[in-house]
């Protein structure tokens, strides 16, 4: 009997029941297993050669996978939940993450009924592919500092979008570089001689006929990123505007609008409704943390049981490294953390539903706390997880440095979480501000 089979005989609890706890329910477990099986057995989704591919080959292969996945969604008539799970098991950052995870939710959250009716059907059938262009070369976490401008021209009933300075160049948005035809762009709204601050606009950036950038649009990929694989499968992009005109009704107008005459009008819909999307994204990030951490811990735990070092006596083999207290003291807290984050994610899913139900009733009482604590939880879970993946690599000794261990790619794919959706230290200061106010 091999080592891991022997280890499994030692278990003092029912593993199948624990799988249900981890998955959330029996239905979720079966769903996960079906989708995992579907992906693992389809040669198009093969990923074992990813780290040896050149960036252009890697990216093209991601496009192939995304197109194949879309075909499967349609031919197998997968539900939204099944499709989301399948994307998770394909395990490769792709433009679809931004299209479904940011572009569509932005339109839902910030578009009027009319705008949703116009844009969502196109987005749902991927007749347009969208991204979320907020971050600029000179401004990340500080959204109020964005410099891109959208100036209303009442004579043509259009906005004119411009990138007035180099630091206003949109920089980092996933799917922007090579794939997106449309972007939700955040820009300062200038009308009636006044600056009304940052608002969201839907801007077409590429032709739907030949995919060429539209006149006045300068767009491209920002270059190779950290590690083999990782986010190199994603076309994080840059974008500049030179007097790009688009119709007035492409300002997302649920929270505020501009009239034909150029008057700025605040809608009755409370601005706080926009925070729901942020809570949703952060909830997903925490769930991701437990997922990535559990993968690293699985690798380190199994290999720590297989690997033997020192201590051989007589005919007896060397000692399993998992039996050393030094290994246990580094590994088992991470195992516990993976479970802790799982339960935290479940709670955050409840928190999201609760806050959305309250927002619908114009009850904003819990919003400051939810906003602050989800920021802080995103911060500590992503920082801990990225450190933990690196710790798991070290727990595997020298072999952990091999890409065959799976850990370098896991790390490269995860660490951006510490700086996207808000830098982790800046986010903790938001929590501190809430605590001080309390």
């Amino acid at each position: 009997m091999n080592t891991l089979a022997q280890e499994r005989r030692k278990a003092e609890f029912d593993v199948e029941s624990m799988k249900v706890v981890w998955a959330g329910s029996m239905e979720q477990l079966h769903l996960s297993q079906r989708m995992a099986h579907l992906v693992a057995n389809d040669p198009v989704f093969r990923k074992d050669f990813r780290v040896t591919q050149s960036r252009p080959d890697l990216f093209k292969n991601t496009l192939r996978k995304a197109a194949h996945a879309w075909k499967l969604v349609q031919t197998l008539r997968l539900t939204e939940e099944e499709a989301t799970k399948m994307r998770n098991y394909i395990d490769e950052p792709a433009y679809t993450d931004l299209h479904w995870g940011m572009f569509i939710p932005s339109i839902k959250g910030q578009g009027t009924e009319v705008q949703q009716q116009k844009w969502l059907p196109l987005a749902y059938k991927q007749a347009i592919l969208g991204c979320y262009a907020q971050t600029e070369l000179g401004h990340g976490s500080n959204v109020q500092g964005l410099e891109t401008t959208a100036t209303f021209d009442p004579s043509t009933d259009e906005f004119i979008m411009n990138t007035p300075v180099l630091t206003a160049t949109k920089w980092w948005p996933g799917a922007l570089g090579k794939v997106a035809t449309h972007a939700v762009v955040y820009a300062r709204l200038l009308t009636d001689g006044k600056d009304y601050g940052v608002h969201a606009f839907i801007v077409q950036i590429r032709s739907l006929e030949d995919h060429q950038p539209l006149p006045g649009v300068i767009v491209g990929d920002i270059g190779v990123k950290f590690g083999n694989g990782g986010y190199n499968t994603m076309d994080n992009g840059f974008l500049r505007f030179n007097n790009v005109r688009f119709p007035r009704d492409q300002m997302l107008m649920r929270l505020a609008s501009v009239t034909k005459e150029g008057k700025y009008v605040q809608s009755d819909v409370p601005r706080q409704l926009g925070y729901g999307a942020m809570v949703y994204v952060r909830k997903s990030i925490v769930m991701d943390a437990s997922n990535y951490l559990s993968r690293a811990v699985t690798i380190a735990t199994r290999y720590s049981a297989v690997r033997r070092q020192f201590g051989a006596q007589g005919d007896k083999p060397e000692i399993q490294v998992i039996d050393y207290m030094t290994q246990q003291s580094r590994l088992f807290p991470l195992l516990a953390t993976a479970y802790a984050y799982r339960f935290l994610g479940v709670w955050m899913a409840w928190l999201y539903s609760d806050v959305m139900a309250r927002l619908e009733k114009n009850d904003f009482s819990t919003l400051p706390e939810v906003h602050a604590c989800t920021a802080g939880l995103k911060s500590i879970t992503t920082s801990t997880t990225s450190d933990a993946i690196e710790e798991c690599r070290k727990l595997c000794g020298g072999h952990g440095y091999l890409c065959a261990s799976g850990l370098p790619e896991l790390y490269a794919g995860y660490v951006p979480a510490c700086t996207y959706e808000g830098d982790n230290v800046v986010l903790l200061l938001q929590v501190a501000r809430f605590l001080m106010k309390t």
Partner: protein
Amino acid sequence: LSLLGAGKKPAGTAAYLGNVRQLATQNCQVIKGADWLNPTTLQHAFEARSARLAVNCATQIAEASNQEAGFTELSMELVDAARAHCELIVVTRFMEALKRELPGREVKSQLQVLCNIYALSLITARTGDFLVTGYLSHEQIDLAKAKLRDLFRQVRPNAVALVDAFDHSDYYLGSTLGRYDGNVYTNLYNDALKDPMNQSPVTEGYEEFIRPVIKQ
């Protein structure tokens, strides 16, 4: 925090701050022979740490001539206070999850061990916070470390099964070291043989760059 004196009751994850006076004055009660694993004891420790760090910051900011400048000046301490608050949330959510029915043989008891490991490993990793606020003594931290060692021994026979419960397939893990069957070394070796670098015994570039050096 300054509003607490006016009778305003904090809610949600910050509700514990309503009990700030007791949290700021009552130190940890754990002594040799007493149980570090009592959930109330653990929760109180995290609440006291968070409340004390927050009160320290709030007091200093209140004393600054300008509150915003005080906030900026204390940003490092504020990050620690925020982290303490968030870690308290994670610990209490884990504890809450264990209060509900969890079917399956010994599933709950295994999760209880993991919950205790999570909480105690945070306490031992953040001893600075607990010592500087005066909540824990050196002896109490030693007791926490000893209890942690006990817990590691309990989790050891279950470790592989606990990661099996994540149900990650070999495809999803993409790891030779983490293979389900544990057949690590044979596969590492065979995979190396298939590496593009090993497609021929003599490397490209030999004639151009290695041979001239050897033959010079």
